Each structure stands twice: as structure tokens, then as C-alpha cells.
């Protein structure tokens, strides 16, 4: 087309266009036919609403809008959803503006639902954003994923072969309950035969309970409503204590350790960051904004604080991640994997020696003293510990009564004096005390203050060694210590599961201790603690108790969650006059976490006993548990060792691929919810109801098959307690039925809604904009009119929160005064089940050790395993994420990250295919990527990849027809089975565990990397 003709046709040629042509010699800015119809410009989905020329907002006909909740990861944020009504399809999700997790600043709950959409539009929308992360955004595709399992399947070949035949729900139910020669492999006991409440599961060992414990169940405990239903069936109705979760291969060790800094008892705590006012941050084992706590809320807080307030923060991480943003006050400290304790102790030693800590905070020895100093919390930093080995109260706090100074409370030296006084006196305490005193009986007793004990521990190792071990210079450690001292209350130390080495428990405890040293717990700008959720197990409906249910009081599960000293093994040894230590296998008193990985390790070792049945719902322990052994895989794959497996899920995964029966389940957008929001501060829940018709097949009664329906029908078949007609007691005296999926959830939501004091009144307009007619249909008949109205209100905003001021002066409003623990007395009463040694009373620094006390180095020397492995959560990957189309699209593979110098030293180059080799784990092969953003000597690989055996990447044959795996889902490498197991746990199946809690390790693991 020649230029002149073109210009003529164009008609109007803008002057600017003609004058500023820079590319080519053709110039025009107007075309011949300018369509005004935006439908010409692409193929998007319809918007949720539009503003007309009259300024009025209208919903788009045929599109239902509703609020729901995101379960793409376990932090749980809110969703706003667009649904194509005619096609019964979820089109798109965004964040819920009423939910604190989606922004940090939710809309007032009484904002009309239509107004919440208006608030998200145009210029106003820029200020009111309510976001999802990439995983959340992609979950709209979770409902109709092409590899989702929606039929009831029975295995047609060997376990794990991927060959299935579809059967009726009723056939599956009958076979599971009654057993028989189900696979042509011999007789299989059904549930009826397995549930024997009158026999011991391990004869001679009463602590392990009845034979009903032969049923091992695994589940997702984070799904509040569905998880509590599952637990009801398993624990109270069936009567098994073996309900395994991912808790101990997630962050349980850290939360347990952290709690030792917060309370004299044993709890679980982990802090959030007060993003609105924080001025200095120290992050270990966590990458704010990359994953978790929640990604939405934290990402916003981090972006705002670092840009608006020049927030200074340090990321201690073997891998440089997006969190360390260019052109901000962020700093990366490249720590060697598993060496966060060395770094932390280097910082703590410096703080204590230089006096760079919050003295005013630490010397408040009682609530009275703290208050007088303008503090909220007090500490036991100055409380005196008996450090006389011969004293009956050795390692306990000296009692004031023993010195004629009071009662059971502790003692301090009054600040600025030599005088011993009761800690309750209201005086400030001397912080560093190590002295011998005479008690009221005239006996000499050595007393040392908690802070002195901490300092002694920190000084056991030199700064030089801390620097060598951690890979972080003394200068950098000193700078962190200085900054912490300087910023005080407005410094926040935070961490998470990225420190799961043999000292994950200690790391959590370290973070609590550091926050105490700077005085930031509950302080404005410091470490904050959310108000949590509104629970729904009790209230109008009693969901917590079952009439004639099974009691599991005193029963120890197959993970050995309990005190070794209470066990039959221990008592027998003592009775025989033997040293009861070591125990034959680890016990978990410090962290009784129902570790699914430990559970199946016990099964593989038939110790204490084997499982006969596995019920696996929404749990993928063979993939997700670090250092799960090949012996465990073998023990599950073999029907002779595990006769019956029932998998319940919407996807096949690395674990349930071994199922005998695969029961399809509802996806997250087809379920009810009322969950806590991790990252939110205000008391509240995020709520949901099914958005579309569940895609699972129906049973003969016309009900969609799902986990709840299966368990209800099993319970009815077997006449188990707690299910069926009248199974739930209502506060008004009547009994409600528990016969189907909606029965449970309606009651739970009613209990939650009844506790929401200021629910907004729902208008007809709200009903339209929140899709309430659809949402309430299944519920109305199951609730009283009042309950219906309350639940409708709860669902209208996708949840509820209690608006309140965040602060009360310089502290978080509502935070109660606590005695923060520098020294924890109760934990010193626990003994390690191998060594018999008492747990330390303060955080402690030691080399990585196995169960028997041998160092990792002594079995896995640097000469053979010169590098250290670290895993992390990639921003776009979580449990099911690979099965969300768009996630597989934007993350085709993970990489093995190494520093380029380290790679050179190992004879490796960027782009090589490399093999990761450990002492006894299953080698893993991945793609090497090298740059400067990796600590030297470190090997970093993300979780959530390498799904060749699940989520649609796997090959299947269903009813004789081949369903080939989708290659794009298999990308990358899975690393958990590469993690080696502890060679000193003398059993065929073993795992690598945290020395103190038995949680699973996946950091700091010695590894070798070779060209593949």
C-alpha cells in the first residue's frame, strides 16, 4: 500500500503523529473504520458490572457475584468471584475488600455490597484494592480442571500403577465397609472387621489404645469446617488416635519453640509484624511477600513500609528473593543453609556484651514493675535460677519462700543494689547476676539470673566460629545487633518454616527471645499477635461432643506423641533395673503434632504397630514430608503391608495414587468455610459457600459424592456414634440430623454467625450483589429463621470481623501483660528420649545432631557432602497450584540455584542438568541456574515442582482408556525424598528430625551435586 493512498483514506491525520514519526517512513494514527464496540478488541470474560452514562452501576446480566474464601494456601484470604450463571462456571476471582487479609485495611462490614464493588472501581479502586496472589488468581480454574477426578474409582491393576475402573459410590461404600476378595489378591478386611474396640492394638501396651487405632487417617487440619468434621468421625466416632497432619513438616517446631519465650507453659505462638509502624525488620526462614502470613497482607505492608517509611530490613536467607527490593532499605545476608542459629547467637552475644538491648523492658520483673516503667509485658530476665547441681530445685527458679522473702514466686536482685527481693516486689531487677546466696536454712545456693544464663550460653562459642558457620561476617552481625538495640520496640524479628533444620524448634525460641531483648512483643511497630478466629464448634449447636462417642483420653498415637517416661517400655526397663535411656525410638512430648510422616514411618517399621487402613484426605505426605523414606513408600505400595487405602480428593497425587478406592471430593470453590485468616489482626473469619454445582458424581440418593458424604454413610452403615438422625444437639433442646454434607456446615456457620455481634442487615440489593439466593438455598431448611438471617449476613460479606482500634497508647490494644521468658523452667523437666538429658532452659547452640547425639558431620562429612541444601516455597506454588492451568504456565520448572563461584568449584555450569545426592535419600535431578544471589556453598531448590506422579502430570488408564499425563505439570524436580534420613534411628524406615521436637528437617542438609 503506498503512502499517499494510505493518508488519503485515513482522512484525519493528527499533526503530532506526522511530526514525530521515528520508526519507518509510514505515519498515521487514525484508521479507516474505528470500531466503538470494545467487543472487537479481544475475547475477555464479561466484567462484573458497569457504570452507565447516567453514572449508575449495574450488574452484568448472567453474571453472579459472590464473596468466598481462597484455600490455595493455608493462610486463607477472601475472594470476590464472578460466576457465569448459564454455564455454571467460575470465571474469575479477585480479593475480598471486606477481608483484612486481602489488603490490611478492610471496608467497614456494614458497607452495602453494591458499594463494595463501586469502591473497587476507577480512581477510588486504586486506594481500595483487595488482592489475591497468583495462586489465588489462578484457582478459578480449579473447578473444571481437565485432570480433576470426579468419578468414584477402584484400582484395576497393582497399587500405584495408575489403572482404574469407575464404579458406583454404593459399590465402593459396600466394599470398603465389608471387605472381601476385592482385588483378586486375597481377602481384605473391611472397616467393620478392623474396628475392634475391645482389643488392644499392641497387646501388653495399653497406652496405645484399642485395635480401632489400626485405622490411620491423614487430613488437612487447616480446613476448619471440613477438617473438624473429619476429626469428629475419626477420633470421636470411629475411635482412632492416628489422625496425621502436615503440621510437623511445616512450621510446628518453630511455633512450639517460639511459645517458650511467651509463656511458662507449652503452647504454640508465632508473631506477625506490625506493618503500620515497624521501623526495622529481621527475617529468618521467611521471605515476606513471597509466601504466607498472608502473601496479600504482608506484601502490602512491606511495600507500603519500605516505600512510604523507608523501612529498614534484613533478609537472612541462603537465596536472594524478590523481598530484597532494589532501591529500598532492604539488605540481604547470605546465610548458609541451616546455620541461622549461628548467625542469631552471633547477634545475641553482641547485643548482650555491648548492652544493645532494651534494658528498661528486661528489668521489669513483675507486672507492677513493668507498668511503672511504661511497659506492658514483664520478663524473667532478672529472675534467679538455682544453678547448684546438688540442690533439689536445680534448674528451677529459686523460690522466695526458701529465702524467707515471700511465697512461690521468683527472686531478683533489686536493681542498683545487692539486695535479694521477691520478683513481685515491684522493683526493677539487676539483669546479670551470678552469685552464691544463703537461703533461710543457711545453705549456700548458687543463683544465676536468666539473662546471665543466656549470655553464658551465647559466650560458649566465639564470634569467629559463629561467622564461619553462618557465612555472615562479624561486622554484619554486629550491625544487626546495633540496629536491633537502636530500634528497640519498633524492631521486629520474624521467621517461619524456612529454618527446619535439626534446630527449627530453637529458631522459633530465638525469635521470641530476640523480640524480648528489644522489647517489641505487643508494641506498636513490633511483634504483634492477631485476635484469631470465631470458632463454631459450640454455641447454638453442639458440634464438639458426641453422645456415646469414643474417648481417646490417655491414648498415645502411633507417632508416639507423649512422654516417653509414661510409656510401658520405660516402665518395663525401670522395673528391670535397666537404664531406661535410650528409648527404642523417638517420642514426641515437646511437640505432639500427629506428624503424618512419623505416623507412616511407624507403620513401615511395624513399631509400635502397623496400620490396616489408610484414609487419605487432602494430604500428600509422600510428596510433602521431607526425608520420607523409600521404605515408607514400599510399606504403602504393598497391599500385604497395608491392606486397604481409601483416597479422597479432587486430584490424584503422589500419595493417593496408591489408593484402592478413589473417592472424588469437592474443590475449594464448592465448599463451606469459616476460617481464621493468618495475617489478620482483628478477630474474625473469612467465610464461603459453594459457588457452583459440585462436579463430583452423585450417589443413588442424588447427593454429590464428597468426603463428608462418604464418612456419614460409613457411619450410618456401621452405626457409629455421632452421625445420623438427631446426632447434633441444639441449644433449644431439639436434635438436628447429620445425614449429608450441608447438615454439618449449616450448623457450624450458624454457630459462628451467632457470635457476630454486629452483623450487617442484608438488603435485597445485597442479595443480588452477593449471590445470596444461590448461597442460602441449601441452608435455609436446616436452620431456624434467626440462624438463617445471621448466616446470610455472614455470607453476604464473605466473612466478618470485629472492628476495633489497633493500639492502646504504645501497645497493641487488648494484649494482656505476660511474663516473657528468657529462661523457661518447665521445659527443663523434659528429657530427651535418647540421651535422657534435660532440655535446656534457654535457647542453645549446638551442631546439627542426630537422634543419638552424633553430629551430622560425623556421618555426613564435608569431604563427601561439601554443600548445604535449602528448600523454600516459590511464590506461585502451593499444594494444588500445579493443577491450576495458569500456574503451570508461568512456572514450567524450578531450578537448582547455586552461587556461580560454588558451581565453578564443583565443576558445574549454568544450564547443566545436575544430580543432588545425599547419604541415603533418593537422588533428585534438576536444572542448574547460577548467579550471585545464592549463598556460597548453598544449594537452593523450591518445593511444589516435580509432580510427574500426580495432579494430571501422571499417566492414567481409566476404564481401559488412556488418559495421558499433561507434561507441563511435571516440570522441575521434587526434593523431599532426596532429604536423607537419620542413620542413628535404628529402624528400616527413618527420617531426619529436629533434635528437640522430632519435626522433619529440610534445611542445612549436607549434599553433593554432580552433573547428571
Amino acid at each position, binding site marked *: 500500500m503506498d503512502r499517499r493512498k494510505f493518508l488519503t483514506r485515513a482522512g484525519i491525520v*493528527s499533526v503530532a503523529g506526522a511530526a514525530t514519526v521515528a520508526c519507518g517512513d509510514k505515519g498515521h494514527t487514525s*484508521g479507516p473504520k474505528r470500531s466503538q464496540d470494545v467487543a472487537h*478488541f479481544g475475547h475477555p470474560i464479561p466484567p462484573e458490572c458497569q457504570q452507565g452514562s447516567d453514572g449508575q452501576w449495574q450488574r452484568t446480566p448472567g453474571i453472579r457475584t459472590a464473596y468466598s474464601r481462597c484455600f490455595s494456601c493455608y493462610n486463607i484470604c477472601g475472594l470476590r468471584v464472578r460466576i457465569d450463571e448459564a454455564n455454571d462456571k467460575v470465571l474469575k476471582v*479477585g480479593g475480598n475488600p471486606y477481608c483484612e487479609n486481602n489488603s490490611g485495611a478492610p471496608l467497614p462490614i456494614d458497607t452495602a455490597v453494591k458499594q463494595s464493588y463501586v469502591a473497587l472501581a476507577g480512581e477510588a479502586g486504586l486506594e481500595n484494592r483487595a488482592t489475591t496472589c497468583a495462586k489465588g488468581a489462578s484457582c478459578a480454574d480449579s473447578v473444571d480442571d481437565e485432570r480433576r477426578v470426579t468419578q468414584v474409582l477402584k484400582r484395576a491393576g497393582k497399587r500405584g500403577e495408575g489403572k482404574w475402573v469407575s464404579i458406583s459410590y454404593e459399590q465402593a461404600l459396600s466394599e470398603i465397609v465389608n471387605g472381601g476378595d476385592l482385588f483378586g489378591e486375597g481377602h481384605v478386611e473391611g472397616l467393620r472387621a478392623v474396628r475392634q474396640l475391645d482389643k488392644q492394638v499392641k497387646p501388653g501396651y495399653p497406652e496405645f489404645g484399642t485395635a480401632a487405632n489400626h485405622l490411620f487417617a491423614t487430613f488437612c487440619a487447616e480446613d476448619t469446617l471440613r477438617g473438624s468434621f473429619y476429626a469428629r468421625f475419626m477420633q470421636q466416632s470411629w475411635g482412632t488416635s492416628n489422625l496425621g497432619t502436615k503440621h510437623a513438616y511445616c512450621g510446628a517446631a518453630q511455633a512450639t519453640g517460639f511459645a517458650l519465650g511467651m509463656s511458662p507453659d507449652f503452647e504454640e505462638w508465632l508473631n506477625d509484624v506490625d506493618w503500620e509502624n515497624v521501623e526495622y525488620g529481621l527475617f529468618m526462614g521467611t521471605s515476606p511477600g513471597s509466601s504466607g502470613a498472608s502473601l496479600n497482607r504482608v506484601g502490602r505492608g512491606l511495600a507500603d513500609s519500605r516505600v512510604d517509611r523507608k523501612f529498614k530490613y534484613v533478609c537472612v536467607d541462603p537465596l536472594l528473593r524478590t523481598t530484597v527490593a532494589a532501591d529500598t532499605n532492604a539488605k540481604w545476608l547470605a546465610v548458609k543453609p541451616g546455620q541461622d542459629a549461628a548467625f542469631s547467637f552471633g547477634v545475641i552475644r553482641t547485643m548482650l556484651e555491648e548492652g544493645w538491648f532494651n534494658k528498661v523492658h528486661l528489668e521489669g520483673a513483675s507486672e507492677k514493675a513493668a507498668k511503672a516503667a511504661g511497659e506492658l509485658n514483664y520478663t524473667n530476665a532478672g529472675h534467679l535460677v538455682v544453678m547448684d547441681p546438688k540442690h533439689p530445685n536445680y534448674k528451677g527458679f529459686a523460690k522466695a519462700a526458701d529465702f524467707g522473702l515471700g511465697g512461690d514466686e521468683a527472686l531478683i536482685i533489686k536493681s542498683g543494689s545487692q539486695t535479694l527481693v521477691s520478683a513481685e516486689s515491684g522493683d526493677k531487677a539487676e539483669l546479670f547476676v551470678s552469685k552464691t546466696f544463703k537461703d533461710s536454712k543457711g545453705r549456700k545456693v548458687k543463683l544465676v539470673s536468666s539473662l546471665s544464663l543466656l549470655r553464658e550460653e551465647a559466650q560458649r562459642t566465639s564470634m569467629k566460629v559463629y561467622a564461619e558457620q553462618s557465612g555472615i561476617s562479624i561486622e554484619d552481625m554486629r550491625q544487626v545487633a546495633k540496629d536491633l538495640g537502636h530500634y528497640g520496640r519498633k524492631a521486629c524479628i520474624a521467621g517461619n518454616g524456612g529454618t527446619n533444620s535439626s534446630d527449627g524448634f530453637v529458631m522459633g525460641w530465638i525469635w521470641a527471645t530476640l523480640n524480648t531483648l528489644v522489647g517489641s512483643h505487643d508494641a506498636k511497630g513490633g511483634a504483634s499477635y492477631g485476635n484469631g478466629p470465631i470458632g463454631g464448634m459450640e454455641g447454638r449447636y453442639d458440634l464438639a461432643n458426641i453422645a456415646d462417642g469414643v474417648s481417646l483420653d490417655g491414648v498415645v498415637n502411633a507417632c508416639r506423641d507423649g512422654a516417653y517416661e509414661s510409656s510401658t517400655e520405660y516402665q518395663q526397663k525401670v522395673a528391670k533395673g535397666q537404664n531406661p535411656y535410650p528409648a527404642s525410638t523417638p517420642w514426641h512430648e515437646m511437640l505432639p503434632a500427629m506428624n503424618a510422616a512419623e505416623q507412616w514411618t511407624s507403620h513401615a517399621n511395624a513399631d509400635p504397630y502397623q496400620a490396616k487402613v489408610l484414609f487419605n484426605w487432602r494430604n500428600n505426605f509422600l510428596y510433602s514430608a521431607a526425608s520420607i523414606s523409600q521404605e515408607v513408600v514400599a510399606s504403602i505400595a504393598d497391599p500385604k503391608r497395608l491392606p486397604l487405602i481409601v483416597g479422597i480428593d479432587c486430584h490424584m497425587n503422589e500419595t493417593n495414587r496408591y489408593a484402592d478406592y478413589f473417592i472424588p471430593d469437592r474443590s475449594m470453590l464448592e465448599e463451606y468455610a469459616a476460617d481464621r485468616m493468618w495475617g489478620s489482626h482483628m478477630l474474625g473469619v473469612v467465610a464461603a459457600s459453594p459457588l457452583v454445582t459440585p462436579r463430583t458424581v452423585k450417589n443413588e440418593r442424588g447427593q454429590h459424592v464428597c468426603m463428608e458424604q462418604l464418612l456419614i454413610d460409613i457411619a450410618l452403615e456401621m452405626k457409629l456414634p455421632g452421625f445420623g438422625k438427631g446426632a447434633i444437639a441444639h441449644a433449644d433442646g431439639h436434635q438436628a440430623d447429620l445425614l449429608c454434607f450441608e447438615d454439618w456446615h449449616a450448623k457450624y456457620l450458624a454457630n459462628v454467625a451467632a457470635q457476630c455481634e454486629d452483623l450487617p442487615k442484608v438488603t435485597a440489593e445485597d442479595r443480588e450483589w452477593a449471590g445470596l439466593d444461590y448461597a442460602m438455598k441449601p441452608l435455609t431448611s436446616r436452620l431456624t429463621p434467626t440462624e438463617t438471617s445471621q448466616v446470610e449476613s455472614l455470607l453476604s460479606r464473605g466473612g466478618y470481623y470485629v472492628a476495633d482500634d489497633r493500639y492502646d497508647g504504645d501497645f497493641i490494644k487488648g494484649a494482656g501483660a505476660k511474663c516473657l521468658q528468657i529462661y523457661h523452667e518447665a521445659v527443663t523437666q523434659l528429657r530427651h528420649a535418647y540421651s535422657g538429658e534435660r532440655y535446656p532452659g534457654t535457647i542453645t547452640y549446638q551442631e546439627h545432631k542426630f537422634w543419638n547425639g552424633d553430629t551430622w558431620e560425623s556421618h555426613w562429612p564435608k569431604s563427601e557432602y561439601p554443600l548445604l541444601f535449602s528448600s523454600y516455597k516459590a511464590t506461585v506454588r502451593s499444594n494444588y497450584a500445579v493443577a491450576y492451568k495458569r500456574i503451570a504456565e508461568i512456572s514450567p520448572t524450578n531450578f537448582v540455584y547455586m552461587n556461580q563461584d560454588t558451581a565453578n568449584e564443583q565443576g558445574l555450569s549454568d544450564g547443566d542438568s545436575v544430580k543432588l545426592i545425599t547419604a541415603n535419600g533418593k537422588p533428585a535431578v534438576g536444572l542448574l541456574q547460577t548467579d550471585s*544471589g545464592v549463598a556460597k556453598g548453598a544449594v537452593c531448590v523450591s518445593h511444589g515442582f516435580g509432580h510427574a506422579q500426580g495432579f494430571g502430570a501422571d499417566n492414567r488408564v481409566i476404564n481401559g482408556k488412556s488418559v495421558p499425563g499433561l507434561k507441563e505439570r511435571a516440570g522441575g524436580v521434587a526434593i523431599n525424598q532426596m532429604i536423607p534420613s537419620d542413620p542413628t534411628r535404628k529402624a528400616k524406615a527413618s527420617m531426619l528430625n529436629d533434635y528437640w521436637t522430632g519435626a522433619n528437617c529440610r534445611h542445612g542438609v549436607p549434599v553433593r551435586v554432580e552433573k547428571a
Partner: protein
Amino acid sequence: MLDRRSILKMAAGGAMLAIVPSAQLQAKTPGKRLAMVFDVRRCTGCLSCTVSCAMENQTEAGRGRTRVNQACIEQGDSFATLAVPNQCNQCDNPACVYVCPVEATYKREEDGIVVIDHEECIHCQLCVDACPYGARRKDETLETPPEKCNFCIHRVSAGLLPACVETCIGEARSFGDLNDPQSKVSQLVRDNKVYAMLSDSGTKPNIFYIGLPEQTDDQEILSLNFLEWQR
């Protein structure tokens, strides 16, 4: 694989990024002058924009309209991450428009969005190579028009925000009318040093960046494959 050449031009001795002249920022158009401002210091690399855009616009796998290119850069005595969202800049002088043989793609007068009219487009993909930003995604089979950002024109004309903007966790992305002095984008370009990518190419882009180190090699950043950053 990620190229290890420095993302910062200082080492290579190239020219620094040029601050966008205020005349260009303030130039008024007859209709709306829709633009975006990206404050890269706010980007958390979440990639919600990338996914939300793909879902909103139903793009084919591998032909998404927006992405975030990330790289390690030197910062002081250590390293940091530069995260740069990028997409079609709705240029005032769009290189793509000039090569279209059927004038299916053009910059709208009423709002400045550079659109592709799917009815007129003959799928030749010539415009894809013409764009110096790599903003258009080719259909190798020549069966459909290239994919490129059109500021979610279907949402914007309804009064809503583009998908990538409304889901931006760090509020890195802003969108609005530069002709309106009260708009957020006007305020942002007034109150900050802003850069544009490839500003010496004459395209006069309408996406303005805050927080890019001025030594940034914009060509290098744009040539990164965002799929290779999986941290």
C-alpha cells in the same frame, strides 16, 4: 538461561535512563490520555498481575499480555532484586501501528489505547516484531491476532480498573488519565522522578516507572525471560 550480563549499565558504560521530560508527561490529548505508572520498589514479584490478566483476557498459554521480569543486581556491597512489570506501553508513537498492512491496529483518540481490531486483523504477526518492547505475543500458527495489553479496555470502558492493576498486592501499578490533574497517575508523575523504557527509541510510551535505578539497562531487562525466575 538467565544471562549473567549486568542488568546495570554502569559496568558496560552505557547511557543512564533518562527522566521523562515534563513536557511529555503534561502533554494533553483531546480525549483521555490513559497511562500507567509502575513503582517497582513496591513490586513483590507475586505475579498475580500475570495470572489475573491471562484469566481476564482468556489468553492462550504462553501468550500472556503482562509479566514481571526480575534479576539480581548489585546493591552496595551486596545484591538486591529488581522486579520490573512490563507490557504494551500504549505508545504515542507506536512502532507496531506503522507496519500493519490493514490498519487493524491503531491508537484510539478517545483514550489513547492502542487496540487490535480482531475483525480487521489478518493475523500476519508483522506488528509483533516491530514492537521494540516485545509487548505483543505472536501466534506462530497465524490463526489469531497477536496478544497484547489493551489496558483491559472492556473493563475500563465500564468504569472498572484493568485486571493487573486491581490485583497488584504492593500497589506498584497505578492506572488513570494523565489529562486529569487530580488523577493518581498525574500526581505520581508530578511527585516522582519517572523513567520510561527505551525512551530513546522515539515511541513515547505511556507507562512510567518509579524506582528504577538510573543505571538500569532497560533493553536487558526487557529481554529477560520471566519464566526463568522461580524464586
